[in-house]
């Protein structure tokens, strides 16, 4: 396989973009990324998106979006793995370049979530769960995560206040990120007294609903070295799945797909967790952050909340986790999130991320997942 590099990056701010459609958001991020790459022309377009089928009632999204940015005639497809679509799209784009089939591929994640009342959006989001055996009973996506949060607190002794440390840290970071949706600070007291969604999950444990698009341009080594002084290598890619339903897992608090995907990515990149300078991880709810930190090998099982309490993972620590503010506060336009993460980590390595910056970062990691740790991607980048 050929080496693959990120040579262009573009993002929109995540927001309730009432004046922008899905295709406009995608075009905005794409044109920025193409410009950032020095105007190279991609031969293929890979789109990470979850809900265009249910919310925009639009299929064949790849072709629609490619045509809109002047790439009529190119290969184009959509990759869907629920909230993990973005990471899987980057992985798909990676294989197109690594295989030699294409030299330049545009990978974009996009989601438009705010055109309808919240109940419509949460219904579409629930499609990430098992329709016949979870959604059927009225289990929403927050509800499934709440089942894990209660069990985690019970088994490992974390209090409600301990779990609130994560959102507080994320809001501290997003405050400095101009692309973030929620740019305000919060407190433990605010988190634990915010409205209950699915007990014990409260509003401020949850990522917000927002619109956004992020794009990375991938290129072969030959092209990357010609057009940029700061190519970022995709050094490791790991993908894995677990059961969509929660109940048939051996242990509810063992997120197997994360562990397997991470193992594969670390091995391919020839690194260990302790080498990672900066990570962007999937924290749709506070409980997700704990499980992810543990399965990635940044914390022992059941101890992520203790490390957080000791002040770990903040700016200045190694790894610094979610300097963007994470899904919690940067925002979570679901199918776009995985591409935002890869774009943010690449900018950290290039040294031009416009928010909280991790100095002299050499190795970064992006972890994205669909469902409750169902479809996980771990992507490792090197400067």
């Amino acid at each position, binding site marked *: 396989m050929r080496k693959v590099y990120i040579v262009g990056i573009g993002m929109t701010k995540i927001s309730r973009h009432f004046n922008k459609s899905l295709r406009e958001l995608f075009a905005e991020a794409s044109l920025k990324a193409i410009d950032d790459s020095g105007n190279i022309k991609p031969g293929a377009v890979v789109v990470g998106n979850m809900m265009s089928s249910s919310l925009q009632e639009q299929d064949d999204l790849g072709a629609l979006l490619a045509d809109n940015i002047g790439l009529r005639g190119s290969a184009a497809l959509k990759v869907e793995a629920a909230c993990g679509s973005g990471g899987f799209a980057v992985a798909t784009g990676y294989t197109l370049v690594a295989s030699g089939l294409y030299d330049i591929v545009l990978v974009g994640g996009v989601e438009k979530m705010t055109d309808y009342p919240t109940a419509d959006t*949460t219904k579409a989001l629930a499609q990430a769960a098992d329709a016949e055996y979870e959604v059927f009973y*009225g*289990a929403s996506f927050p509800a499934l995560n*709440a089942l894990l949060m209660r069990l985690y607190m019970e088994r490992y002794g974390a209090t409600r206040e301990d779990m609130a440390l994560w959102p507080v840290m994320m809001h501290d970071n997003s405050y400095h990120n101009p692309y973030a949706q929620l740019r305000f600070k919060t407190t433990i007291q605010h988190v634990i007294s915010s409205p*209950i969604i*699915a007990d014990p999950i409260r509003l401020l444990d949850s990522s917000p609903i927002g619109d956004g698009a992020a794009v990375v341009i991938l290129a072969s080594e030959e092209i990357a070295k010609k057009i940029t002084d700061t190519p970022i290598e995709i050094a490791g890619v790991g993908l894995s799945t677990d059961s969509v339903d929660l109940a048939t897992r051996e242990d*509810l608090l063992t997120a197997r797909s994360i562990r397997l995907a991470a193992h594969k990515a670390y091995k391919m990149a020839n690194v260990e967790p302790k080498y990672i300078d900066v990570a962007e991880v999937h924290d749709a709810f506070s409980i997700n952050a704990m499980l992810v930190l543990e399965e990635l090998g940044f914390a022992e099982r059941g101890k992520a909340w203790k490390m957080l309490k000791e002040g770990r993972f903040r700016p200045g620590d190694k790894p610094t986790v979610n300097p963007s503010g994470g899904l919690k506060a940067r925002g979570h336009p679901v199918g776009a999130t995985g591409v935002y993460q890869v774009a943010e980590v690449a900018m950290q390595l290039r040294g031009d991320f416009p928010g909280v910056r991790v100095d002299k970062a050499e190795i970064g990691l992006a972890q994205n997942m669909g469902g409750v740790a169902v479809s996980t991607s771990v992507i490792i980048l090197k400067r």
Partner: protein
Amino acid sequence: MRVSPARLWREKIYHYRLVATMCKKCGKKYFPPKVVCPLCGSKGLEKVKLPERGKVITYTVLHVVPRGFRENAPLIIAIIELEDGTKVLAPLTDVKPSEVSIGMPVEATLRKVFDEAEKGLIAYAVKFRPIL
């Protein structure tokens, strides 16, 4: 969710009677049912009736409920470990949120899950209630 008579009818043995599939090789039971055993890879799975009693191992109380469930709010969803160790996800019924606890003994009972008034379809399934 959208339902049709065929969609409800196909799942009836699982939803009405708490039937799972069991791996003939390793003995593990699955609800929702699987065709191939995810644990040992065996293709020999058969339908088995699950025990009707167990205990709550975790639960949540939904204050924001999906459309179609408003009359059930607040909705309690739990994961129950049955007497044979099989875990199932199901709603709790006949109990107030403040009375639910981890470890609470529960038993299966057939209840309405939701109805689609326009089509006249009523979805039934096993829920769990406290053992009196």
